[in-house]
Each structure stands twice: as structure tokens, then as C-alpha cells.
């Protein structure tokens, strides 16, 4: 058992599909805020959360241009949480399921998000105080 608190989360939902994604990110933020080390294993559609080519867009329905719309991008949320972790003396270890990445062609992940396998997930779970799976529905 680790001496420092470490939590592992498994996420499954693709970005822009479910309120569970925002909730999951808020949980990550809260854990990092308390100085916990956090592992994330992004599985299935969740591997796209860290896709580097996500792009903001204008929104004619809202009547806003790109800058005004300031559309959230999950890759930016991950980057923000990684920066936040550093300020709290914590680690955010983000691992994408490699085969899930290949299936979806989203191999270009932001810096800090690495490719892994279910074996990494198992290892992270073993080394954590607790693990929470947030599956897709």
C-alpha cells in the first residue's frame, strides 16, 4: 500500500457526450487539490479526452465567434489539471488505452498523456489506495 494517498480513476465516456465527464474532472480536481496523486486510465471513448487536435469553433446559434464562445476542450482541462497538480505537489498520471487509441485514430495526445495498456491500469490499481470506475452508460 502506498504511503501517500493515490487514487486511480477509470474513465470511459468520450468527450462531449455525457455530464459524467465534467463530474469526473471535478473529482480529479478535488483529489489533486488535496494533494493526492491521481492516476487516470482512459478506456474506450475516453482516450479522445486528451486528443491534441481538438479545436474550438464559433457557434452561430449562440451568436458568438471562436474567441467569444471559448468552447471548452477536454485536452485543455487535462493540461490545466496537470499544471494544478504541480502546484499542489501532486502527480496526475494520465494513461490512454493504446488499442482504444488505435481504433479511433486519436494517437496524437497532449504532452503528459501517455499510451499504455490494461496492464498499466492493473498496476495503477494495485498501487492506489482506491479506484473508481466511471463507466459509460
Amino acid at each position, binding site marked *: 500500500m502506498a504511503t501517500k494517498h493515490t487514487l486511480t480513476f477509470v474513465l470511459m465516456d468520450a*468527450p*462531449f*457526450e*455525457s*455530464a459524467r*465527464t*465534467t463530474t469526473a*474532472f*471535478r473529482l*480529479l*480536481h478535488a483529489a*489533486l487539490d488535496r494533494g493526492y496523486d491521481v492516476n487516470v486510465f482512459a478506456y474506450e471513448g475516453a482516450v479522445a479526452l486528451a486528443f491534441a487536435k481538438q479545436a474550438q469553433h464559433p*457557434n*452561430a*446559434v*449562440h451568436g*458568438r465567434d471562436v474567441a*467569444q*464562445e*471559448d*468552447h*471548452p476542450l*477536454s485536452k*485543455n*482541462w487535462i493540461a*490545466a*489539471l*496537470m*499544471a*494544478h497538480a504541480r502546484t499542489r505537489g501532486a502527480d496526475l498520471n494520465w494513461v490512454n488505452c493504446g488499442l482504444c487509441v488505435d481504433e479511433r485514430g486519436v494517437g496524437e495526445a497532449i504532452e503528459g498523456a501517455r499510451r499504455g495498456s490494461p496492464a498499466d491500469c492493473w498496476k495503477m490499481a494495485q498501487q492506489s489506495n482506491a479506484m473508481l470506475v466511471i463507466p459509460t452508460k
Partner: protein
Amino acid sequence: MKVLQIVETAYRATTEEQDDTVIWISHAMRGAGAELGVLLAGNAVNYVAGDQDASGLTLGAWRQTQPPVLAQDIAALMHKDVPVYCVKEDLADRGLLECKLLEGIVLMSRAQMPRLFGEYDQVWRW
């Protein structure tokens, strides 16, 4: 062709999209000339609660600047002559009948829904 959009799954990525994607596509299709109606059922009846506030999300240093304002989006849809219906029993189940609701929403009972469906050529359930 007239289409009734039934929105039952609520708050589906509304924070990320800064709107409800079905309400959004209804706006976009209305702009393209579609004749639509919207029926809010299940948890989506909460969209007509006027006092909801989704602002304030922060993740690290990231701050959301344009949080979703779903009641406003529904109101804007009605201004585009899209009638918006809401299931009265679903509001009652959630204690929302006494809340400040959007003006112009048509409350209807489940028993009235078959007649509503008959007024449309197609019914799309999201």
C-alpha cells in the same frame, strides 16, 4: 414536414458543449427552415426551471467563461416559434411545479401526449 423532438436525457455534456446538443440542433434546423416542436420529459423538464445557474466551473487555472444557460436557450427557441411542451407529471415528481418556470412553456399530462404526437409527421426521441 413537422417533427416533434423529445428530449428526455438531460444535461448530456451541457458543460462541455455550453448548451444541450439536442436543443442546439433544434435551433440550427429551425434556422434551416425546419418546423419543429420540442417535448421535455423525464429529467429534461428541469430545463424550464428559470433560476438554474451552471456558472463557476474551474479546473486548475481553467475557468469557464460561457457556461450553458439552458432556460435561455429554450426561451430563444420559443421566440423562433418552436412550441415547447413539458410533461406535467415529471415536473411534479421533481417538485418543480411550484418553481419559477419559463413563460410560454405548454404543460401537458402524459395522457395528452398521444394527441400531441398525432399533430406531427415524425417524432424523434433523443
